[in-house]
């Protein structure tokens, strides 16, 4: 029997190699994939989030943990799907039109994947129609918009308008973030949620997916 706490610690320490090795071993010995996720992996990511909140962890630790989580999930997800368990939700994420900055977006994308979301990464400088298509044709239930430049924040509003014009605004939740973005701005443009950092973005996406 593999020592499953090692999976928890590997994720907490951002050690993808060990996380994958322990997961492989556990699955080979018929440990329930759902148990791995619920008892070891999700609690580890929650602890990562807490450490980030209290400034024990910063972006590098966050990213490494998310990658370890993703490595394990890649092995587990096919089994979960086969057993009929649904992913937490499908998110279409991108940096809005006119903005080429993708560090923040990539970070949130990695954290969402680590949090069990099915993420469609549309890249940077994404036209509003592409978000609309991701909702219409690929079934995204959450649209996550990122901007770094103050001058491109307006593209968030344009994107939300495009979702309305396409008649799909009611089918999705829109979350926004990025250095110049604030809670107040998010409300003004009619977004459903704002998060200040990549860690709280996961909690926000979970709330939005459940509502």
């Amino acid at each position, binding site marked *: 029997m593999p020592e499953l706490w090692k999976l928890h610690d590997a994720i907490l320490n951002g050690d993808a190699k060990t996380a994958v090795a322990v997961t492989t071993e556990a699955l080979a010995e018929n440990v329930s994939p759902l148990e791995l996720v619920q008892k070891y992996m999700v609690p580890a990511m929650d602890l990562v989030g807490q450490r980030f909140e209290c400034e024990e962890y910063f972006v590098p630790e966050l990213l490494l943990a998310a990658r370890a989580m993703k490595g394990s999930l890649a092995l587990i997800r096919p089994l979960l799907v086969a057993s009929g368990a649904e992913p937490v939700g499908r998110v279409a994420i991108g940096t809005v039109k*006119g903005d080429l900055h993708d560090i923040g977006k990539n970070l949130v994308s990695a954290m969402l994947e680590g949090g069990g979301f099915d993420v469609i990464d549309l890249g940077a*400088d994404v036209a509003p129609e592409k978000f609309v298509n991701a909702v219409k044709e690929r079934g995204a239930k959450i649209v996550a918009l990122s901007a770094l430049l103050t001058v*491109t924040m307006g593209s968030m509003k344009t994107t939300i308008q495009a979702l309305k014009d396409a008649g799909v605004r009611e089918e999705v939740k829109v979350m926004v973030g990025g250095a*110049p973005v604030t809670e107040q*701005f998010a409300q003004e443009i009619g977004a459903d949620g704002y998060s200040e950092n990549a860690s709280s973005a996961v909690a926000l996406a979970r709330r939005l997916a459940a509502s």
Partner: protein
Amino acid sequence: MSLLEELLAATPVLTDGAWGTQLQARGLTPGECPDQWNLTRPAEVEEVARAYVEAGSRVILSNTFGSNRITLAGHGLAGKAVELNRAGAAISRRAAGDRAKVFASIGPSGKMLVSGETTEDELRAAFAEQARALAEGGADALVVETMSDLAEAKIALEAAKSTGLPVVACMVFDTGRNKDRTMMGTTPEQAASELAAYGADVIGANCGVGVESYIAICRRLKAATDRPVWIKANAGLPELVGGKTVWKMTPEAFAGFVPQLIQAGASFIGGCCGTSPEFIRAVAGVIGR
């Protein structure tokens, strides 16, 4: 007398303010590569540089912040890196004449090392190419700025140092409860000691969450290093009013923080996002030259 000794004979040295917003006022559209204007609209770029010299800047930067080939690739301009940097440095040099020194700008790649989006070798090659071209264009010194990742800052710093020019290295402190760490978690003390160890001639902080928060950062940098300290702070945080980005801090309010920056040990003072030649003029009034 070396360039830095000459400048530091009278401190604080007034540097410049933001460039992007000045270019937008001259027609740059969101999403367009500002650095490309070094080749396509050089007259407008020179106007911005000249406006800062007129406002009293003794040091001006250059319109080359995003001119490393990794960032340029996002605009399909990677092959233009050398040309853009040479032109950018030369434009600032022309505007500066003998009234100001040109500290040419080197910004971050926009890609993360820790996630594997880029590699140390890729960064080393890109920054070396940029630094060389800036030196060829006539830069008097180089500024590695707006860095969040100490590892990337050190690579850019080494590349800049290899030109033989004096080098300023500064990072953005905008993260955490007290907004006193870089996005990657680096403290001012860590930044100061590591950047000094890698040969930075001047150490500093730029951008961030507003000038008031950089007073304490300045004090901590000063305490952690024997190098002169460089501060280029933002005019607070922007607000969106009726679809337009507005910086509410006035030039006078910004300049009002300058005495505290001087007291905290800043040798070079200027502005970053939200500032303009008017801000530099107001700071010049406070400094008294």
